[in-house]
């Protein structure tokens, strides 16, 4: 594994960004490491709920990228300081505190696992 200090990883999560979106929930990550490419999205976990790439979309700028379309041959480019919204198709999650884990693979850094806590609140 590549050793990325937790304080750097946690800086990548936009605090209090867990929120309800159309047909699901979402949160934001900000690239604080450097320009790179995501070559695989493994999963997102919200407490005990595990979401696979087929249930995830990444909103990058004006583009919507299905999670399962991201591969070694079709990576998603992620620039420095760019914001990506991770959209999860699940309308059943209740409000409350969540431990959130984003597990992906970057071409530059290898496997990256980001774990943070946030609270889902209905507007």
């Amino acid at each position, binding site marked *: *594994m*590549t*050793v*990325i*200090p*937790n*304080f*750097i990883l946690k800086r990548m999560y936009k605090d209090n960004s867990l929120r309800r979106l159309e047909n699901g929930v979402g949160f934001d990550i900000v690239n604080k*490491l*450097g*320009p790179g*490419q995501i070559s695989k999205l493994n999963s997102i976990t919200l407490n005990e709920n595990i979401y696979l790439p087929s249930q995830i979309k990444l909103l990058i700028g004006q583009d919507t990228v299905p999670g399962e379309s991201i591969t070694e041959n079709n990576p998603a*480019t992620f*620039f*420095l*300081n760019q914001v990506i919204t991770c959209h999860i198709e699940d309308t059943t999650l209740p409000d409350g505190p969540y431990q959130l884990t984003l597990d992906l*693979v970057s*071409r*530059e850094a*290898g*496997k990256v696992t980001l774990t943070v806590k946030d609270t889902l609140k209905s507007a």
Partner: protein
Amino acid sequence: MDIQYDRYSLIINGQREFIRSGAMHYFRLPSQELWEDRLYKLKAAGYNTVDLYFCWNYHSPEQGVYDFTGIRDVRRLLQITQELGLYVIARPGPYINAEYSGGGFPGWLLAKRDIPLRNRREGVFVWSDEYMSYVREWWEQIIPILNEAHNIILMQIENEYATLEVEPDYMQALYQMTRDLDVTVPLFHNDLYVAGLYEDIVDIYSFDNYSVTQFETDWREMPEVFQVLDAVEENLRPFCEKRPLMAAELQAGWFGTWKGYKYEKITELLGREHINISTKSLLGQGLTVFNHYKAIGGTNWDYTGSIETYTSYDFGAPISEAGLNTERLFESKALNYFLKSFDLSTTDRVEQFPLALSNSECFYAVRSPHDQPETHWLFLRNLTYEPHVLTVSEQYPVTVQPFEALILPYQVKLASGYTLGFSTAEALYQNESVLVLKANRAVTLTLHAPLSTPMFLNGSHAEGVELLESAQGSLTLQCPELPEDELRHLTVGSLNIILLGQRMVDTFWVEENGNMVAGADMRLLDGSYGLTSGFLTLYHINKSGDRIEREDLPRSQTVAVPTLKHWDIFNDAPELTQLPALLPQFKPVVSDAADFDANGVYEGSAWYHLSLGNQQPKQIEVNARHIWAAYLNGQLIGHGHQLVIIYGMEAPQPVKLDLSKAPWHADGSNELLIFVNGLGHPKGFHDDAQTPQGLLNLLIDGVEHAGDTTIAGQVYSRREMVPLPLSELRDFSSSPVVLLSTIFSLPVDDTVEIPWGLKLQDVDFERINIYLNDCLVGRYWRDCRRQEIFYLPQGVLKTKQGAENKLELLLINFEPPIDKQRLSIHPQQVTLHPYSVLTKAFHKTTALKH
């Protein structure tokens, strides 16, 4: 040596210094001749510093044993740097990465698996007194030698280190240890994340930057790769209010891997533009200490390379593995010459350029020396495929070509006393009477005289130069872009101006005595210049720049390349046919592990043996790294290779072999032999340096038997250290391991310089190890055909008149084994390869004395 620093730069013995460093791996250059040659070329290219890792593994073959002799004589290495007048940035680890096997940790330490190397396990901080005691043992060996040298200006502790929670203990302990060992120079660490890691522990904060590490996409399609560099001043100045900005590693190439790219591709993709843009971007950020990593290519000779790297470690470096200057060297040389003669060591960022710019599309930065506020340097950069044109002050048109970066002068006081008002051409060099400019674009420049005196333009080679304006004390002239191999010479008062076309810029050299030469691709260690056969014209320019002499050299004679023939053939797997006689060489493996490290075989190959007696198991399962073959009673029953690297980690890959139809002996004399060839250790970047090689598991009908085997190690590795009587066995009909041996001598011609390689073409064997004079200089792997020309290192290769070179090819092919028919190697399949033939010329210093 007194080393001070402030927010601008290092101050060495009271003098501000802009540190222009290039990295060299002495452990990848297996002769002192090579060290001298490459360091000389580095210095000639205007670098004033060499960055040196000191590799623990390379000096410590066994615990408590340290070797600092011959090709490991770092005192001599440091002496050469002092003789050349280079500063040294010393990086003694303990961990160095460097794509060295085990990241530079010695094999005996890797074998101690209970020790958390770097006080870290899977990113979690774990303190180990025992590990620290071994670090101290290494540093007590190497640091006193470093302390003897008087040209070390900086020392690095650890390398790209971090833990998940960034505990300070380890770095603090290393800092204190160096001070306890009487190191007085400033200490730094290279932060991979450019995030201020350990900045409060070290003296000088520093970072690494590799903007292009993926070659699937051309970086030109993704110019955002420079974003980190572009934010250096904003992000790092808060850590560096009282110390200079420093890049411990600034990308000057990248390493090739068995499953990655050939160096031709890496070099082509990076191009000459990348090193120019990245370095000038950092200069635009006010950085005054940079280290091009690496400036000099090398060779993963023997088993120095980490698992993923093939033999060449050319790195796409400015000076290639074979010692040739590349276009990337020409770029860095031009930058170094510029920085050597123009002072950018104390600049501050200025928001606006004093002259009006017609547009800001290519604007990158403006900097001004803090004690010369009228002087400005304009940084322009074009990261698009289209040329951009802007006009400065409605008078100076500048075209910035695609993927080009420029630094243009405004009101720069010259050493000659003149002032360069503005120039659309970049400055390359100056002294008290000469100004050299790059006329690889249309030039418009304004000069001001030291006194308000009339100025006149003259010139012996001034074709195309036009005087636009002349007034009391100043003039403006212009010159169209010069053809690449042309130059112009003008005089303005007492100032000689030399304008150079692109190739003249690339081949421009300044000698120690101030004389200059244009037209030569290389400066060579014997004081001569090397010219490629395409361009055989030299321009000799005297120090004051008022005399230029042209010299046309005769084309060199064609070099006769010796043919390799008369191969002697040896069976090098006698274990398969004469096992009883050889069994005394096999030793029981240690009780809990059969892998190489645990049994003192840190690199190379080994045979494992297990007597099965009357057992006739149905299945065995072999888990071995990295290339292996299993034999029952001398016959192949299976083979495999294991090099699966997933995000830097090796995954296990056991192979099951069905023995139901195996060649069992009914008399109970059933002998299992397993040959394993290791590719090296991982480099440890992912805490994986201790990943074992060799036989890891041997399940016989589901029961582990690896611990019951015996091992004969280092059979084929370290051949120069271990006599090999087995190879004297000539009789064989077929064998999986065959040694071919021949002798050759090279033609001697003092008028040329030739770096030599060995080319393999359509040679159909799984693996080939190439030994030159008992030194392993090449590892070919057919399935990962990344390299087919192998550099024959100068110094290992004997080049004197009549000197004989012994060349051996160790061929490995499991299925089918190698028989005499397969050994009918055509002379064109294995050939000596001249990388280049350089015609030598000496500077006419006598003629140009005045």
